[in-house]
């Protein structure tokens, strides 16, 4: 049996919109993944620390405050500093404009899945990303 996928679901910044992150966390758990949820108002440093300590495959970051162009580059930078950039897949979610989605995916966010993305698509995206990463090892 394949090793269970570990996902850290994170809310970064002061944004309190947690409906989406909770629904996704539950759907991923129902799909057989192991979920760690950070709770609200985390700093990028805290999230990256937990991700490394817990040895997760994926960090899912939900941002509905509009601060995504500040938050995601910082997460990538911190993962690089810890030499963990290659090991962890970052998925973004929330209210993010199309042009920003392109820019974020360009800078290394694996996929930005905004509000209204079907849950199955999120599950599939994570399964495929982790499978590809494990196969490449």
């Amino acid at each position, binding site marked *: 049996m394949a090793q269970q996928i570990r996902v850290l679901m994170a809310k970064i910044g*002061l944004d*309190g919109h947690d409906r989406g992150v*909770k629904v996704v966390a*539950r759907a991923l758990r129902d799909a057989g993944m192991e979920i760690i949820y950070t709770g609200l108002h985390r700093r990028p440093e805290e999230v990256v620390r937990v991700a490394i300590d817990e040895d997760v495959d994926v960090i899912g970051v939900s941002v509905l*405050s509009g*601060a995504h162009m500040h*938050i995601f580059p910082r997460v990538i930078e911190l993962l690089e500093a810890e030499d963990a950039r290659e090991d962890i897949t970052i998925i973004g979610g929330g*209210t993010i404009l199309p042009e920003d989605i392109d820019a974020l995916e360009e800078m290394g966010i694996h996929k930005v899945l905004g509000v209204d993305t079907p*849950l199955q698509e999120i599950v599939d995206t994570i399964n495929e990303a982790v499978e590809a990463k494990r196969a490449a090892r």
Partner: protein
Amino acid sequence: MLPGERSLTIRLGPLVVVARDDSILTRRMLYTFTMSKDWKAERERWENETVAPFVDRRPERRESFETFSGAEVERVYTPEHVEQQAAEGGFPGEFPYLRGPYPTMYRARPWTMRQIAGYGRPEDTNDRLRYLIAAGQTGISIDFDMPTLMGYDSDNVMSFGEVGREGVAVDHVDDLAGVLDGIDIGEISVSMTINPTAWAMLAKFLVVAQERNVPWSSLSGTTQADIVKEFIAQKEWIFPVEPSLRLLRDMITFGAEHLPRWNPVNVSGYHAREAGATAVQEVAFTLAAGITYSEQATATGMPFDEFAPRLSFYFISHSDFLEEIAKFRAARRLWARIARERFDARKPESMRLRFHCQTSGSALTAAQPLNNVARGSLQALAAVLGGAQSLHVSGMDEALAIPSAEAMKVALRTQQIILEESGVANTIDPLGGSHAIEAMTDRIERDAKELIDEVDERGGTVECIESGWFQQEIADSSYIFQLAKEAGERVIVGVNAYREDDPGVLPFELHRVAPDTEERKIEELIAHRATRDDAAVDARLAELVAVAQTDANIMPATIEAVRARATTGEIVESLRAVFGTYVETAVF
């Protein structure tokens, strides 16, 4: 039948009435008979004789029909479904206020058209407020950025990337004066969406008024200040639950003594609903919070009738038109009963629930965004038919960004069209007496009351926050809704039906916050700190801390700290040492 008698035969299903003549007496008998007839049996006959063969030929669209909140909807409603007949609803402006809090409603005074505004630096938001007032808005409403809401100054590390983004950045009293520059706060009512730092924002507002020589007695408006719904839904907090409730209690009792036209709190269901709650949960959790605040205030020795008339409420108007109208009516009737039965209210003003309403932001879609104008219109209409006192219609672009000036103008015009063109504001509670509306009103009131009883049984609001019960209830509803949506049982036009693969170009321009906002705001804050008397600030903060350690009202000392130009961040950090910091029970 005797010879010469005229007869009238009326067939009512299997029942046959034979009237011997059409005398007044017989007509009255017939009328009485109609009113007391067995509607259940009648409906069953109709189901068997008329519906069943019809459905055989043409099946209905679904096996069963449900409201947006998942409650079953009947094929047709008759008096059999109505538990509390209209007579029990009384008249507008009378207990239990089912039909409206005021005797004349919109015939005398239309609801306040209050489109919210807030972004960037104070002067940016001031521009938007003046634009909306010029467009005919009758109240103003201010949104603050996340750092302001959570008590961080613009230069705090936690504020990084968030300054002026989701609302206006207000660090100190002069910032608020800037937001309100040129606006007559003695005339227009001012609503502020501010919660954990609400008491400090109210203090700023009161100092702005004093420095403009506007008497406090003339100030009208609202501080949202509803901390319970923060813990359970909106998730902006600073201090633990008990000291947070104390701050609100102090606002309520201070307001009762000094601010006769101010609503110190806007007890809110909007956020729980946006977080995924059902209509029933929205009503129940909101009124449960109202009960808690009332208990806190009465525990100081202040009678309920002294502060209750200034309690105000805030509900969402969501997608399900009939259910939402029923919800507003049910909330009014249930609160009137709670006020009378639980708090022994004597004054009519203490029992009548007044509410602000905002159409649902989460119901808006990023796909095909012009459709959001239709959604906003329907939801706004439901709010008006439900008897709202104040209304914000969410912008057509809200699924994409902070609303643009144009989106807000369309939203304001939507309200004006409902008031001026549709005719629905000319009579009170026009849907009252509809079997469907009354039956749904009964159901929501009954179910919400049961849920409030459950909160009581679980030890009350504070216990239910700390155990995560509210949060879990909402997360469960949210997940059930999401699964229904994914299964296509809840259709969202343009999202899970009627999709268009090519999104095309946006039909309007989005609002963008100036990229140098954060940098400029921080520079201004540093300059502000350089101009004040730091020793005076420190002295006022020390006095504030001393008051916080007692049970005395915190408002006067906060007002003095604000007057000395202390920032919100400084005030909050001083009090953290006394109150501590809230740690969330994170559930999903």
